[in-house]
């Protein structure tokens, strides 16, 4: 009887383990299939002209041209938004780390951050559009940057806040003991020590920003030209994928796959690059 119970327990253990292995394979397999799909579908349609030319006449019917407008546009959008988000995020994170005295206030700021983080990007797009209407802006690079910066700000702040919590307290206290103010400690000790993590956080937000379509859909517009001013509309890679896939022509759809491949490569490079950079910058931190 006892033996049988023992047996049963071990069988149960085995079944659960098998199910776990299956689940794990399912998740890892999904990632593999997604990457495979994008590569297999995208690679044949990818060529140099795609990357170095803007759309020529009849591009959306399958004629010549490329998606340089979308590549540059996405870099402008995400670059500008990341810069603005950083200018907002770093002070907030430093405030939470070094200045806040009232724990309740810190809690409220963090809760608001978490809430903003969870708001869907389409809502940021709609909100960005209402801001633009209020300012009298049309769909433009500036509008897109505003909406994306709002979207990226909570992602970046949460990540930097998280990083700054890892700051060794002794190091900070050593700085205070030498007589430096909170600001000096924050700028010359905390930021320097935590630079690898901060860079990772910034690149994380950049990656999210460059891949987001719904927030730039109404705010940035779409154009075949590379914008020359902040007030011009701008193309973006996610929308390039979306619009080209929506055409009925197989040649253009193939270009959508190629665009998706370009976008994936950029995002994965940023994601992997941030790890590498964090590792490189880690040398300057005091262990």
């Amino acid at each position, binding site marked *: 009887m006892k033996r049988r119970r023992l047996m049963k327990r071990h069988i149960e253990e085995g079944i659960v383990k098998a199910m776990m292995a299956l689940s794990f394979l399912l998740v890892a397999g999904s990632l593999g299939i997604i990457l495979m799909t994008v590569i297999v579908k995208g690679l044949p349609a990818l060529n140099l002209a795609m990357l170095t030319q803007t759309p020529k006449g009849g591009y959306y019917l399958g004629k010549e041209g490329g998606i340089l407008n979308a590549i540059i546009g996405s870099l402008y959008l995400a670059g500008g938004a990341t810069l603005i988000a950083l200018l907002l995020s770093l002070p907030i994170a430093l405030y939470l780390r070094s200045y806040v005295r009232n724990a309740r206030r810190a809690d409220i700021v963090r809760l608001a951050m978490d809430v903003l983080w969870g708001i869907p990007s389409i809502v940021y797009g709609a909100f960005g559009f209402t801001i633009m209407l209020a300012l009298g802006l049309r769909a433009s690079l500036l509008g897109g940057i505003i909406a994306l910066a709002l979207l990226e700000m909570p992602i970046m702040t949460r990540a930097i806040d998280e990083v700054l919590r890892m700051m060794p307290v002794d190091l900070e206290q050593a700085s205070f003991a030498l007589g430096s103010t909170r600001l000096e400690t924050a700028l010359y000790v905390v930021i320097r020590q935590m630079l690898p993590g901060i860079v990772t956080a910034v690149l994380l937000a950049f990656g999210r920003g460059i891949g987001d379509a719904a927030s730039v859909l109404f705010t940035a517009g779409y154009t075949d030209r590379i914008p020359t001013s902040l007030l011009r509309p701008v193309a973006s890679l996610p929308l390039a994928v979306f619009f080209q896939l929506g055409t009925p022509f197989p040649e253009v759809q193939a270009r959508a796959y190629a665009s998706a491949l370009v976008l994936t490569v950029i995002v*994965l490079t940023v994601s992997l690059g941030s790890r590498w950079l964090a590792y490189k910058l880690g040398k300057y931190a005091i262990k």
Partner: protein
Amino acid sequence: MPAKFIALSSRTRSTEASLPRRRASDFLAGKAFSLFALLPPVIALAMLIALLLRARPILAIKPIWDLLTGETWKPLQGEFGFFPFIVGTVWVTVVSMFLAVPPCLLTAIYLAEYAQPAVRTVTKPLIDLLAAIPSVVYGVWGIVVIVPWVEDYIAPFFGRWLGRSIPLFAVTNPTGFSILAGGIVLAVMVAPFIIAVTYEVMHAVPEGMREASLAVGATRWQTIRYAVLPRATPGIIAGVVLGSSRALGETMAVLMVVGNVAKVPSSIFDPAYPLPALIANNYGEMLSIPLYDAALLGAALILLLIVLVFNIVATLVLRNVIGRPVE
């Protein structure tokens, strides 16, 4: 105090300033930073108020209950019933959670309790990669792989065996653009998130509880089931709620595979038209139609309110469990 002793950095600029000046800049920076820290709550409130104001024209004319339960969406005739869209959103989200939660929990349990450290170090970046893939790429994958798969294999299979007796699986839609396709794509999209939260939550359970259980002769699975999981359950539920709020708001990937038909669905093989897709497909066009703009921003408002409630509750629970946000 001689300021030159503050040789913390190679920069000497700040060390040459006089003490009152350094104190003043510290004070001013503190004030400025605290103003920046007001931004998150202010932005959240501003969003709510802006959407409320912009949706007011339609809220002023139609009773809110009629809007939420109205089944016809004919902007040209001034009929704005959100019911099909709300139901579509709920269906897609529920299907995705149904598909995502069991494998995600098992994967997270595996990673937290069974996996060798080497497996963990390889897996974490992989899951981060899955989270980094843009939604439009998931959409491409959905169109290329999932939609044909549902159309050619899943739908015929269910149609033959279960469709006649269970309406949930009835197949009337000839294409694969369906709730199921949207649910599958969403399930993969939220998987990294749910895995990460569950992993963190299980990690936060004190090691002593496992040791006590193993010491009295329990197997690993018994330990997990009777010692670890009961403690982790609130956190896991909060993680699933957060995951579903991400799924609710996901726009592009779902829009691309879900069919976008404004009708109340009755089977997982029917097309649906979730709220985010409604906004994305129509906003910016035809804003000359009266109330259309207000109705679409009303849809955004509904979405925002649902997500706010989900997020606040789940965040408060998670904060008690692991004490920090999960990315």
